[in-house]
């Protein structure tokens, strides 16, 4: 069976302001993932991540999400919510909003269901664990729904 769901952890583990994705990746690496789920350390690869949205039905993105809620809370956003933060920006720090904005136009094949989960910089280990658990739950639910 091929990969149906993908967990894409984004960020830079050497920069604490942007390390939520790698921290969650480390937790997930030690968990048993639902069948047909792939875990990827996406780093800070920009447009080179586009391939990671092709050939699967669900992509759960884990990233640092600052300014969206209380510190210590698990934040969840839709692709459209993140894409709307783009504001026409496509420079060096355009980031995930640019990727989410452009994805429907450049994705070969259907755009998968996308969930963006994260927390603010500096979140404690319990928050990281909670994000990892939610990632697994999403992929499990999706695996159950998939034909």
């Amino acid at each position, binding site marked *: 069976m091929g990969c149906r769901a993908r967990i894409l952890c*984004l*960020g830079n583990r050497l920069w604490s*302001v*942007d390390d*939520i994705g790698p921290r969650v990746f480390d937790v997930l690496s030690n968990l048993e993932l639902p069948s047909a789920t792939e875990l990827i350390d*996406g*780093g*800070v*690869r*920009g*447009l*080179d*991540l*586009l*391939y990671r949205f092709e050939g699967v039905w669900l992509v759960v993105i884990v*990233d*640092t*999400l*600052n*300014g*969206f809620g209380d510190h210590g809370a698990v934040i969840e*956003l839709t692709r459209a919510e*993140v894409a709307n*933060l*783009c*504001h*026409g*920006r*496509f*420079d*060096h*720090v*355009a*980031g*995930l*909003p*640019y*990727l989410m*904005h*452009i994805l429907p*136009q*450049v994705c*070969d094949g259907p755009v998968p269901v996308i969930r*963006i989960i*994260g927390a603010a*910089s500096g979140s404690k280990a319990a928050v990281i664990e909670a994000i990892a658990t939610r990632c697994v739950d999403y992929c499990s639910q999706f695996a159950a729904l998939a034909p």
Partner: protein
Amino acid sequence: MAKNRPTRYQCHIPLNRVEGDLEIRVVVEDGVIVDAWSSGTMFRGFESLLVGRSAMDSLVITPRICGICSTSHLMAAAMALDAVARITIPDNAVRLRNLALMAENLQSDLRQSILMYMVDFAHACYADRPWFEEAVRRYAPMRGSSVIEVIRETKKIPEIIAILGGQWPHTSFMVPGGVVLPARAAELRLCRFILDGYRRWYERRILGDVLESWHAVTDVREWVEQSVSRRESELGFFVRIALDLGLDRIGGAHGAFLSYGSLPLPRRTGIHPQEDAAQLVPSGFFRKGNLEPLDPERITEHVACSWFKEYKGGLHPYKGRTQPQPPQPGENDGRYSWAKAPRYGPFAPETGPLAEALISDQPIFRKLVGKTGGSAFVRQLARLVRPVFMIPVMDAWLIELEHNPEGAVYQQPEALHAGKGSGMIQAARGALGHWVRLKNGLIDHYQIITPTAWNGSPRDGNGLRGPWEEALIGVPVRDPAHPVEAGHVIRSFDPCLVCTVHAVTAGTQPRLA
């Protein structure tokens, strides 16, 4: 120009769409730039990071310098260690390394051209030009037809690196002595399939003709107008816009050009660019119509205007030092950049595809530079047509690999214990060099000079401006609020591009040039 603006004033040009942070400060007098300073505003310190580590660590760490040209850094790092080991790598290893580097450059050249350069032609300041509506249709950020197509097509070509090197970006498949694994027949066929698709797309949309047709060009404007497909291609549209805007009359730098040479030829190959050539892209120094052999000993780095601990004159990279000395608040001692100032003898040459074209004696570029002394137009043109020369060679080397599947890809070197070596290549943006010295198996000294360090350097101890500082002199600025003319000049040097996915932050404001 706005009313009541003084005839002489100074302004800062924040240049986005570059990897790393860059600020340009210019003095404008009577609507023309009369002086310029280029400031790299970020210290990275990779060279210091490497000291004391195992020699092999450079193969993993230096590709992280850049997400766009990570293969270039790997190639330079591996070649430096080859030199330390004094080893000649097998022919198939040469081919596999070269193919990865060439695939990376194919992606970079087209992304830079369409996503980073042409986008400025869709700026509202050109609304009165006859080509403006078409430029918006093609190049509007996020939705232009050419923008979308280039993102789709250029994401495919690095698959060749992933197939041959295990991943993209930041592969470490090149090692001293060769590469870590051979390519299987099915993988080579897949690479040829990807390359063929890229070639057909490049011919149809970028060039407007088959690759071979470019070799007959003697006059660019005439060549473009000879058929509808050429005229409507991205190259044709670029030529029409650039000449209309006079980009062929602005942006010349010092008229000096440098290539380290690149893509070493296998000992047995059907590719013979020139008699006795050792590399596909030759090395050399070109100035005032004269081509000289490259003398690596003439390369130095100056820090007179850089935020590093001062030393007199310039130092060769084997002796260079990278000791940061940050500016203090209120300090104004003439230093203004985190970039050093590389020099070739007393000269500040530019590097990149145009330098490669001149040094490999491509007649059309010798003619264009001889006529205008270099310009933003000819610099960008050289980048747009570089794939013409790369694609057929890539295909030939893939076929040679298919014909010799059992050929060695690795020659065991002796232990890397002590010694020094350099890896000097042409990355997408030009001359890239790594200089390493080992002691007791550890890195004792590491210096890197990137293409953008050459092109975007500050002044040296003699007050000589860096190439793009010089290229800005004489550039007209119609509207200081939107100095697109300066952007055309700086971007023609290709100062890197967007490559990161950072943290998502609510309420972020755009920073647009």
